[in-house]
């Protein structure tokens, strides 16, 4: 692979929505839910700064930081996968999809470990407002990572018979778009809940 950008057409590329419009409607709706959640968190925190600061002090940074790196790596793999399908490098593309799922699984395992620790310490939705938000946000996001994995797995499965290729990228781009949304949301969540203290 040389270091130059690829131009598949000579003319400037037309504006193009990566993946399915219907999926983008869904993505926007998901962003809306998370956005509302984050902003309401912001309001509550502002009203009870000490409570939230105290809760955050119980959150170790190592695992969440690792989690962020894992999701970013997963996103990078999805970008690579789309590009490889566009270049008809089927086997390499499928490997990229698998690697994305490996990173995603890593995220899920770390997250499960973290949540298990909290539950064993007796923390629940009713413990206090901070823990209510922490659990709701992280579990809700967790479910989205699971869904993202399912979508990517479905694409990987269907790629086995050469369904995706140059000019036939809709499915992969759609899956990638969803994955990136999950990543994007996590970047905000990570900053807000874990790091901003």
């Amino acid at each position, binding site marked *: 692979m040389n270091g130059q950008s690829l131009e598949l057409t000579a003319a400037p590329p037309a504006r193009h929505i990566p993946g399915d419009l*219907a999926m983008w*409607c*869904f993505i926007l*709706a998901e962003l*809306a*839910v998370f956005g*509302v959640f984050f902003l309401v968190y912001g309001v509550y925190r502002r009203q009870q700064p000490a409570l939230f600061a105290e809760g955050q002090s119980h959150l170790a940074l190592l695992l969440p930081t690792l989690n962020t790196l894992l999701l970013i790596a997963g996103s990078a793999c999805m970008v690579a996968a789309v590009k490889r399908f566009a270049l008809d490098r089927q086997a390499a593309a499928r490997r990229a999809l698998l690697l994305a799922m490996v990173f995603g699984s890593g995220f899920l395992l770390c997250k499960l470990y973290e949540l298990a620790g909290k539950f064993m310490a007796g923390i629940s939705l*009713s413990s206090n407002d901070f823990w209510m*938000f922490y659990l*709701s946000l992280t579990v809700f996001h967790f479910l989205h990572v699971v869904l993202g994995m399912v979508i990517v797995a479905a694409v990987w499965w269907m790629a086995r018979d050469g369904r995706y290729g140059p000019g036939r990228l809709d499915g992969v781009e759609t899956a990638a778009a969803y994955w990136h949304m999950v990543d994007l949301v996590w970047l905000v969540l990570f900053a807000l809940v874990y790091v901003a203290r």
Partner: protein
Amino acid sequence: MSNATVAALPASKATVNDQIKYRSQAVAKPYFVAAIGLFIGQILFGLIIGLQYFKGDFLFPAIPFGTARMVHTNLLIVWLLFGFMGAGYFLIPEECERELYSPKLAIITFWVFLVAGALTILGYLGLPYNVLAHLTGNDLLPTMGRGYLEQPLITKVGIVLVALSFLFNLSMTLLSGRKTSISIVMMLGLWGLAIFFLFSFVNPNNLVLDKYFWWWVVHLWVEGVWELIMGAMLAFVLVKVTGVDREIIEKWLYLIIAMTLITGIIGTGHHYFWIGTPGYWQLLGSVFSALEPVPFFMMTVFAFNMVKRRRREHPNQAATLWALGTGVMSFLGAGVWGFLGTLSVVNYYTHGTQLTAAHGHMAFYGAYAMVVLTMISYTMPLLRGREANSAAAQKLEKTAFWVMTLAIVGITLSLTAAAVTQVSLQRLSAAPLSFMETQQHIMPMYWARFGFGLCFFTGLMMYVTSFFVTGKRES
């Protein structure tokens, strides 16, 4: 299909009906006829209770308010169930590309359901409720006395058996036939309907738990699995009348139901604000239910978009109108009016007021009554041997659509005005009035509501008449 089951099909008048693809789809017809009949009953009782709001002793003691209300709401649910069943019997064979597993079973089930339903209504009207309870085995397993679930135990068991028979019939058809997104979503919704109905048998002694699980029937029905049924029915009609590529329509359907489930499941929490459940429901219920309008918005955009991209001019314009109307009215009634009271900070003041009634009427009509009427509008001509009704019949049907729909808007606006009055006088005020005092201020709105109710009934009569209008047949 055996000869016996062929014989069980409703006999066609003249030659074989070539408008329907599978002969067994004809079993849908009695279900739809029953649905309309019960709909008429529902509205008659609606008029009675609407009148009783300002003339409290109308028909007292023969039909007191509580009884009439019970009949009104129970008839609503039952006619919609007949509608869903008819829809299922029509669309599953067509989607699965094979005859219904057992048309005979469908007909038997129809009569069982109709007779059981009729007896139940007669029981409500003819007996004191406690006597009905005693006679029907409520002492064995108490399930009566809860809103919308007032049915005697034996009726509830009957509903489960009818549902199982229906689901068995359709599932067997689906299992050996073609699987499409529409048929799968329809079956998921219908199975969900049956499974969540089982919670009507769960009646904890603890009042908090009682209310907690009651919503597992009511909310998870109308803001859950019924939306799947609605989506599938709408998608089916749109595929047929617009000719738009099935793949496009099915993709939209999956996204719509995904949004429904994501928002509606935790969204159940908007019923858990004040009943004694933990406080975190005020947050979770508000956030998720705030987005429950999204799937209805998507259904509206979806319907209009599909019609705009249509590949054919289907002669059944009435059905297309009903489909588009369903999108708009469900979004307004379920989505917008629902949103008005869904945030806990607002609901604190509007809970249990006329706002709920305003929302409830437009939502039920806009979403479920209209989707059933959409289905009937599309299928009835076919079941009667023609692609679409005559221009004259369609014109009357379309007029009926507008009269009923505008009447419901009138009812909703009247009740919304009542709600604003009620909330400001009884809840928001520095010197709140009592409930009864407030009701006196609302009386004019109840009169207006009744007037619109009469309009609605007129529209319904026009609708029924349209079935009997002949005139030049569309081919």
